[in-house]
């Protein structure tokens, strides 16, 4: 078992929450380097004993902010101290908390990212589920239900508190009730990744929250990727279709939990979680359509359970993934503005989490390639496959040249990936760890 393996090889440090134990060293081909710069990759536990860590954000000195889905925001300082900064409702031990913040199912406190000018303005952005802006819109699953927000905070110089909470996006939809779907609980398909892209703009990824009309609707923010400034205003060059909310950069998404920007050209790529088929890596196009449309009574479909065709046909029974893909495609080619996926997991869905480009010459031939966490969901005949993939993307973003599994020597549900200032890849797992993955 992995636990025993960890125990045997980890080194003990002063705190149970912070330790470094080298657990894996491997090369992709299992052979010695013969001319190509293939790095030796090592994974070590950086933090353990966490509760559903979801995302991290680094400062240049190694300070790491991180979220735990049902607890809140904390920071691990460069000296290794941990300060609990902003908790969810009813959590204890945080210097402050939001009484409106809660978690349910896939929803909770998710993305975190520091402002590009953090050194000057101490600004941090945070995505969470909130009931503050429900209004009368959350009585059923078929209403707008603004239940996800993006907050902006000022972080104190001593990293012990946050202040000046400002809610800069207050109208990202949330699923409040159970529905008749396989993963039917509240909080489904909740997106939630935050990243700062070229020019310092904030990118926000969303999910369709199990509402059929979401991804193709121009006014709802569910199933969209947003590009906004630090006050929540649309980037002036966003180019969504006429009549759409101008904060929308791309639409037609199912559930985007991964986004990063290619170092060579700044282009945004997403990792998107498929239904029973087709996880996708996609190069975004300003105003483009990712092609997900789970609405009923269109595209040759009839009525669907709770007006959502995302798992049909026969959503409760085993069906060939290709049949489902034909019924409700992840990338529907009937859309003229479709952004074709560069990778589709061979037509299967094992669940994508986060995505991050590898930066630094220490990564050798992998420098500049995209990584994505695959969470290993295995239903029907789909094999389990918890792993981190490395993709060599074509220059035009429309295909890949290769996809390999990062040679870690172990499997976890990799939920959050982000590069650290030390050119290591940091990976949060649903099991409760954050790994530091180095290459040399």
């Amino acid at each position: 078992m992995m636990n025993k393996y960890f125990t045997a090889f980890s080194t003990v440090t002063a705190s149970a929450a912070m330790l470094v134990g080298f657990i894996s060293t491997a090369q992709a081909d299992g052979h010695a380097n013969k001319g190509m710069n293939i790095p030796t990759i090592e994974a070590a536990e950086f933090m353990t004993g966490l509760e559903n860590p979801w995302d991290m954000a680094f400062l240049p000195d190694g300070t790491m902010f991180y979220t735990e889905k049902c607890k809140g925001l904390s920071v691990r300082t460069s000296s290794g101290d941990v300060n609990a900064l902003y908790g969810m409702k009813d959590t204890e031990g945080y210097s402050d908390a939001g009484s409106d913040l809660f978690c349910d199912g896939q929803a909770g406190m998710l993305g975190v990212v520091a402002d590009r000018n953090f050194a000057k303005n101490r600004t941090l952005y945070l995505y969470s589920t909130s009931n503050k802006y429900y209004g009368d819109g959350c009585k059923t699953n078929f209403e707008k239900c603004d239940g996800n927000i993006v907050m902006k905070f000022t972080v104190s110089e001593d990293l012990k508190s946050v202040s000046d909470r400002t809610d800069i996006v207050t109208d990202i939809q949330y699923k409040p009730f159970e529905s008749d779907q396989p993963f039917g609980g509240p909080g489904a398909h909740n997106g939630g990744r935050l990243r700062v892209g070229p020019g310092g703009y904030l990118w926000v990824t969303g999910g369709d929250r199990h509402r059929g009309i979401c991804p193709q609707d121009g006014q709802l923010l569910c199933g969209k990727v947003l590009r906004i400034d630090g006050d929540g205003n649309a980037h002036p060059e966003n180019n969504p279709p006429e009549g759409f909310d101008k904060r929308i950069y791309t639409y037609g998404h199912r559930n985007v939990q991964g986004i990063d920007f290619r170092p060579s050209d700044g282009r945004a790529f997403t990792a998107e979680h498929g239904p029973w088929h087709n996880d996708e890596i996609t190069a975004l196009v300003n105003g483009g359509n990712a092609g997900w449309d789970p609405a009923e009574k269109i595209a040759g479909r009839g009525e669907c359970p709770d007006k959502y065709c995302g798992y049909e046909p026969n959503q409760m029974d085993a069906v060939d993934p290709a049949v489902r893909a034909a019924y409700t495609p992840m990338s529907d080619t009937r859309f003229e503005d479709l952004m074709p996926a560069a990778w589709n997991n061979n037509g299967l869905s094992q669940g994508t989490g986060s995505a991050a480009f590898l930066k630094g010459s220490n990564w050798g031939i992998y420098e500049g390639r995209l990584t994505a966490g695959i969470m290993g969901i295995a239903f029907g005949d789909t094999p389990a496959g918890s792993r981190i993939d490395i993709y060599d993307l074509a220059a035009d973003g429309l295909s890949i040249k290769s996809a390999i599994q990062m040679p870690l020597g172990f499997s976890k549900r990799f939920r959050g990936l982000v590069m650290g200032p030390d050119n290591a890849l940091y990976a949060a797992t649903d099991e409760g760890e954050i790994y530091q993955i180095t290459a040399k």
Partner: protein
Amino acid sequence: MQASSGDIEAGETRYNKTCVNCHGPAGKGVASYPKISGQEIAYTTSKLETYRDGIKIGPNSSLMIMMAKPLTDEEIANLAAYLKQATYE
């Protein structure tokens, strides 16, 4: 009742075949999937039998019904025995 005589080792093997993909190592619970370790054997047995019978008892019942359908009485007993004592360190 077979539940009281489940084989812990066989239960662990069966658990790691499919259950671990959602409920995580040793039934600790991950993401939106609940912790299922530490429960009394009768409780886990009853839940799995209920799902196997196709009865909904929660928002993700459809998934569990799908996973429980192929389980034999012996496999349920083994899983219940394993999960009763499973811990994640």
